[in-house]
C-alpha cells in the first residue's frame, strides 16, 4: 500500500478552502497551463492518454467521453455530478468540503476540454455545508478571473453555477441529473441519444463525477505519464475508497487500485470489531453484488471485482459482520431502492415494491421457500429490462444475497413463521388508511 496520494495530498491543510491558500500550494496552475499553453485538442489528448476512468461508478475513460462531444459553434455544457447518494459513498463530500478549489479548477479544465460555455455543479441538496463552501469558492474564482468571460485572457469563457438538488438518489444517474437540472422531475432518459450529443437543453453535454474532475488539474500539470505511474495499467491513478459499516475505522482512504481488498478493509479501516468476522461486503456501494470472506484477497480493481461476480462501481466498501441477519440487509436495501425509484419504467417501479413486500413477508413469518424462488426470478426479470441502472442496482445485490445466503434466508423464514404462530386463516393486510 502506498503513501503516495494525488487528491488528498494537502487535504488537511488549514484554510485550504480559500483560494489564496490553494494557489500558494500550486492551485490553478493546471487551468493556467491548459488555457494559455495548450489547445483544446491537446488537453483532450492528455486526458485520454492519462487513462483516467470515471470515478462515479461507470469507469469509462474520461478523455474518450469528453472527445465524443461534437466540435463547432453550438452551445455545449459541462455538468459535474456531485449528487453523491450511493449508500456507503462519502468521498466527494470530503473533497468538496475541504478542497473545493481543486474541484472548481477541475471543472473549468473539463469545460475547456469539452468546449463548454456553461458549467454546472449539481450537488445534492443534503450537502448544505458543502454547497455553501462551493458557492464561496466559485465567487472567489470569478473574482480572480478564473471563471466567467475571457478567462485569463485566453478567449475561453465559461460560466459556473452551483445547482442544489433536493433529495433524490436517482438524480445521480447522468440523464436524470440533466432532467433535474432542466427543472423537471429527475427521470432518466433513453440512451441513445447520449448526453454527448443531446444532453442539457438538448445540447452536447459532458458529465463527470467530482473525483474524476478533481484529478484533471494534476494530470495537466504533471502529465499523463506521471498519472499512469500510479495504480495499474487498466486503472491508473489513485482512487478514494470510502469504507463503512462494521469496521473499526470507517472513513475515506486514497489508494492505488489493484491492492488486495483485505489491505483496505483490515489494513486501513481496521477490520471488523474484535471477535467478529466479515460475513458479507459490498465492493462498490450498496448497488454491487455482495462478496464474502473468500474474496477478500482479490485485487481491488474494476476487472477483478467483475470477475468475482460483482463490480467496483464507486469503490465504496460496506462491511457486514456475522451478527447482522442478511434478511435485514436485503430488506433495508430493497426499501431504499423502492423509495428512490423514479417510477418511470415498469420493471423497476413494480419490481422494487414487489421485492420489498416479499421480504417483509419473510421477516414477518408469512413466506415459504417458494417465495425465495419467486424473488430470485423477479430480480432476474428486472435485470437488463429497465430504463436505467437503478433497477439493476437493487436486483443485483438482492439477487446475490439470495444466491450466496440462501440457507440463512430459509432459516430466517422458518424462525419467523414459528414466532408468528401458525399461518392464520384470515390474512389481515392493512389498508393504507390504517397505516400512519
Amino acid at each position, binding site marked *: 500500500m502506498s503513501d503516495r496520494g494525488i487528491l488528498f495530498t494537502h487535504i488537511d491543510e488549514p484554510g485550504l478552502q480559500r483560494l489564496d491558500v490553494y494557489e500558494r500550494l500550486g492551485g490553478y496552475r493546471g487551468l493556467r497551463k491548459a488555457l494559455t499553453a495548450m489547445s483544446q485538442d491537446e488537453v483532450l489528448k492528455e486526458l485520454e492518454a492519462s487513462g483516467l476512468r470515471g470515478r462515479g461508478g461507470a469507469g469509462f475513460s474520461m478523455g474518450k467521453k469528453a472527445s465524443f462531444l461534437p466540435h463547432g459553434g453550438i452551445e455545449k455544457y459541462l455538468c459535474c455530478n456531485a449528487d453523491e447518494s450511493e449508500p456507503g459513498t462519502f468521498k466527494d463530500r470530503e473533497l468538496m468540503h475541504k478542497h473545493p478549489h481543486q474541484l472548481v479548477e477541475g471543472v473549468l479544465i473539463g469545460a475547456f476540454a469539452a468546449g463548454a460555455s456553461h458549467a454546472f455543479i449539481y450537488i445534492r441538496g443534503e450537502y448544505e455545508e458543502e454547497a455553501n463552501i462551493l458557492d464561496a469558492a466559485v465567487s472567489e474564482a470569478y473574482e480572480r478571473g478564473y471563471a466567467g468571460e475571457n478567462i485569463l485572457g485566453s478567449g475561453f469563457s465559461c460560466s459556473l453555477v452551483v445547482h442544489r438538488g433536493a433529495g*433524490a438518489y436517482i438524480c445521480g444517474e447522468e440523464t436524470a441529473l440533466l432532467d433535474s437540472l432542466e427543472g423537471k*422531475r429527475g427521470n432518466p432518459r*433513453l440512451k441513445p441519444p447520449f448526453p454527448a450529443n443531446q444532453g442539457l437543453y438538448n445540447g452536447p453535454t459532458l458529465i463527470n463525477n467530482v473525483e474524476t474532475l478533481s484529478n484533471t488539474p494534476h494530470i495537466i500539470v504533471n502529465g499523463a505519464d506521471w498519472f499512469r505511474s500510479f495504480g495499474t495499467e487498466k486503472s491508473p491513478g489513485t482512487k478514494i475508497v470510502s469504507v463503512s459499516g462494521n469496521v473499526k475505522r470507517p472513513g475515506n482512504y486514497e489508494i492505488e487500485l489493484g491492492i488486495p481488498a483485505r489491505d483496505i478493509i483490515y489494513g486501513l479501516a481496521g477490520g471488523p470489531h474484535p471477535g467478529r468476522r466479515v460475513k458479507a461486503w459490498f465492493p462498490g456501494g450498496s448497488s454491487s453484488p455482495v462478496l464474502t470472506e473468500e474474496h477478500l484477497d482479490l485485487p481491488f480493481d474494476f476487472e477483478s471485482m467483475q470477475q468475482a461476480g460483482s463490480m467496483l462501481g464507486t469503490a465504496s466498501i460496506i462491511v457486514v459482520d456475522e451478527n447482522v441477519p442478511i434478511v435485514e440487509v436485503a430488506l433495508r436495501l430493497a426499501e431504499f431502492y*423502492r*423509495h*428512490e*425509484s*423514479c*417510477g*418511470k*419504467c*415498469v*420493471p423497476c*417501479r*413494480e*419490481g*422494487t*415494491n*414487489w421485492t420489498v*413486500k*416479499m421480504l417483509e*413477508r419473510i421477516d414477518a413469518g408469512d413466506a415459504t421457500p417458494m417465495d425465495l424462488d*419467486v424473488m430470485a*426470478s423477479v430480480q432476474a*426479470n*428486472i435485470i*437488463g*429490462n*429497465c*430504463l436505467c441502472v437503478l433497477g439493476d442496482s437493487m436486483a443485483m445485490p438482492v439477487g446475490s444475497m439470495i444466491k450466496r445466503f440462501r440457507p440463512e434466508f430459509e432459516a430466517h423464514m422458518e424462525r419467523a413463521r414459528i414466532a408468528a404462530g401458525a399461518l392464520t386463516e384470515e390474512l389481515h*393486510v392493512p*389498508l*393504507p388508511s390504517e397505516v400512519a
Partner: protein
Amino acid sequence: MSDNWITFTVDGREVRAPADELLLDAVKRGDVEVPFFCYEPKLGAPVGACRMCLVEIEGIPKLQTSCSTPVKDGMVVYTQTNRVKEAQNAVVEFLLVNHPLDCPVCDKGGECPLQDISFGWGPGRSRFHDQKRNFPKPIALSPLVAIDRERCILCYRCVRFSQEVAEDYQLAFLERADHTFVGTFDGRPYIAPFAGNIIELCPVGALTSTSYRFRARPWDIVDAGSICTLCPSQCNISFTIRDERVERVLARDNEAVDDGWLCDKGRWGYQAVNSGDRVVAPLVRDGGRLRPATWERALDAAVNGLRTAGAASAAVVGGQTTNEEGYLVQRIFREALGSHNVDSRTGGPLDKHTARLLSHPGLAAAVPDIDSAKCVLVLETDPINEAPIIDLRLRKAVRRFGCRLVVAASGPTALDAGAAERITFAPGTGEAFMRALQKALLKVDAPGDVRHEQPDADPAEGDADEAGVIGGQAQLAAFLAEHSLERLAEIAEVEVDDLEEAAALLTAAENVVVIWGERLGHGEGGATALGALGDLALVLGLDAGEGSGLIEIPTATNGRGLREAGCTPGLGPGLTDIEGPPGMTAAEARDAAGGDVKAYYLLHSDPIRELPEGERWDEALGAASFVVAHEQFLGASAERHADVVFPAESYAEKEGTVTHPDGRLQRVRPAIGHPGEVRAEWQVLIDLGIRLGLALEHHVSAGAVLAELAERSPLHRGVTLDEIGGRGVRWQERDQSRSAAKDVLGPLLFSDPAEPRTVPRPSDGELRLQTRPDLWTSRELEHAPSLDFLRPRQELVLHPADAERLGLARGDLVRISSNGNAIEAEVAPRASVKEGTGHLIEGTAEQNANALSNGLPPVVKVTKAGTER
C-alpha cells in the same frame, strides 16, 4: 420519413423500410407485431417507459426498446426468441402486480390494449400474492373525465398530452416510485379544451368518460364515421351508436385535418342531438304562439310568405349549413324570388376580386403545411376559441419542428407564450397593421428574392421600375411610399421595432403559412382590410413555393363552403358572376327591414344572438312581415319572430358535404335516423323551391344535389361523394377543379389600396371594446348537459393599469354601455392585454357582447354596477 430505403432482417425475414424509421413501425412491414403501451408518435419523442416493446438486436448485449430505436441498414432483429419472450412476460407480470382485476366492471373492457397484450404476450398467471396498491376509485378528475388510479399503469400518455401537445400543463405525475399517481394542482379539476383526448389515449380503463360510463360494451355498438360540424376545424369523428342513439364521439384520425385529436366541444357536443328540447316537428305561428303543424301546412305557409315578399327577401345562412343546403337556398332566392340577398358571413361586404383571391389555389395552404412551415403568421384570430385543433397543430409545429410563430392580433391569444414575435394592434386597425407590415417587408433586402415580381402578370402591362416590381405592385409601392412606417405603426398602435422583427422572421423563412381570422374583415373597412390581406399574401410570396399559403379561420363552421356554394350577395356557386348588382349583406338586410326587405329566411341562424348588434336584429325581425327559420333548438330569433319553423337535422342525421377552411370537401354522413317529424333538409328545400316555381329536379339523394352543384360550380366540378369518401379531398388538388376554376378566379392581382381607417382613442372612464368568441358559447352546448359547467359568464378582461385607473378590482361587477345599450360583466385583469382596450365574450346567452356590437371597436363606458344610474 426518409426517402432512403434500407434493408434489415426481422425474425429471419428480409424487410425494406425507410432509413431511420422506428423499429417498432418498421417491423410491421415484415408482418411482425411488437406490443407497446407508452409509444404514441402523436405525443412526440418516444419515452421508452413501459418496456413492453423490448426486442433483441444482434450486436447489442441488452434488449432494446424498439419504439426508440431507428432502423439501420443490415440490422438483425429478433422478436420471438426466448429472451424476448421472457422479458415480455416479465413486463406484463410487473404491470399486473398493482393493476386491479376490474375487467368485468371496467368500461375499457373489450377495447383494452392491456387485456389484449396480457393475453398475447403475458405469462398467463401472476405470482404476486401481496397487497396491491389501493386508491379510492373512480374519482372525478373533472366533470367530464373520471380517473381510477388503481388501474393506471403510469404510461405517461395523458401527462405528455397535457404538457406537450395541449401545453396546458395541468395534468402531471405527483410523488415518486410506486407512489406515483396522475393528478392536478391542489385537486383542481382538469379543465382544458382538449381534456377528453386523454380518454382515448389511455391504454387502460384509468381515464374514462363520465357520460359514457357503463353505457355499452364494444360488441353492443356500431361506429359511424362523419364530420363534426360544431366549429371550422371540422374534425373527422366517429359516432358510437347503440340502439339508434348516439352515445359517444371518438376521433377518426385524419392527419390532414385533425391529427387524431378532438376538442371537448366536439367530444360531448353530440348530447344536443339527444336533447328533449329539440324541435322535431314543423311549427307555425298561430295566435301569437308557435304550434306544431303538418309539413304541408308549414310548407304552404312558408311559400305564401316568401312569395308575397318576393324579391324583398333576405336569407341569413348559419354556420352548420351544408354545401348542398346552401346551394339550394341561394338558388331559391336568386331564381325563384329574384333576390341576391343571401349572406352566410358575419362580416361586411366582400368584393368579388378579394373573394376570388382568397380562394385562389395559388395562395392556398393545407393544414399539413403548418407542420413544415418555417414561419407561421397568425393574424387576428385566437385558434383555441375559433378552431381549436389548429391551435394544437401550431403548438406541434413550434415545439417539434422549430417553426417560428408570429402572432398579430388585437387581443391576447393562447399561443402568445410560444410566439417568437407577438404584436398587439388596436382593435379595428388590422388593415393599418397589414399595410405597415407590407412596408416593413418591402424594405427588407433579399438578394435574388423572386417575391417582388408580379405573379402571372402580363409583362407588357408596365415597365419594371428600379426595384424590379411590375404591374399592380407598383401601385402598392406608390401607396406605401405616401405613408411612413411610423405613421402606419401609429395608427395600429404598434412599435416599429416589432414590425421589423416580424418582417425579418417572415422573410427569413423558406415557406410561410398565414392563418387569418375572418374577423379581420369585420366592421367598416372590412372589405378593404381583406384586400390588404391579399396584398400581404402576394408581398410575402405565398404563391411562390410549395407549402406556403393562406389558411382562413372563418367564424362559421362551413363558412368557406357556403361562400363557395354561392351564399354571398355578390357571387354565385363556385364564385361565379351573378346577373345584376350584388344583393345586401346580412347587416344591410337588417337595416332595410320593413323597406327593401320584408321577409327573412333564417337557415340555422339566430341573428339576435350570433350576429353583431343583436338588438337591432330584434327590431328588424319584428318589423318583418314574414320570417321562416330552420332550427334545431328555438333561438331567440325564431321564438320571438318566426312565422314558420322547420325542424333542422342534427349533424348526426345529416347527409351532405362541408368544406374545410383549407378547401377540403368532407362528407357529413347520417349515423342515426331522424327523430320525430324531422326530414332531410335538402329535401325540404327542394320541396320549397319547386313550390315556389323553381326549375328544380326532384332529387332523390344528397349526392344528386352535389352533382348539380358540381355542374354549376367550377370549383366543385365533377366531384362525387365517392371521391370525397372518408378522408375528404381538397378541391385545389383536383385537376378538374383547378382547370375549371382558372377562368373564374383569374390571375392573382394586387388590390386597390385604400386609406386604412383610424380608430378613436378612449378618454377617461372609457375603454375601447374588442369582443372575442369563446369556444363554449355555442347554442348547441346549452343542450349538452356534460358541458354545462364550461359555459362562461361574461367577463371584462382588461389591463391591470386600466383596472386601477377605473378604480376596479378583480371580481367587481361592472356595467359596460355604449349607444344606449349596456351589459354587465365581471372584471378580470390580465397583464397580457393591451392598455386601453377591454375584451368581452360574444355570443353568450346572457349579457351578450353583441348588444354592444361584435367585432367593431366602439368606445364604451365602464362603471361599477349599481354605482351609476
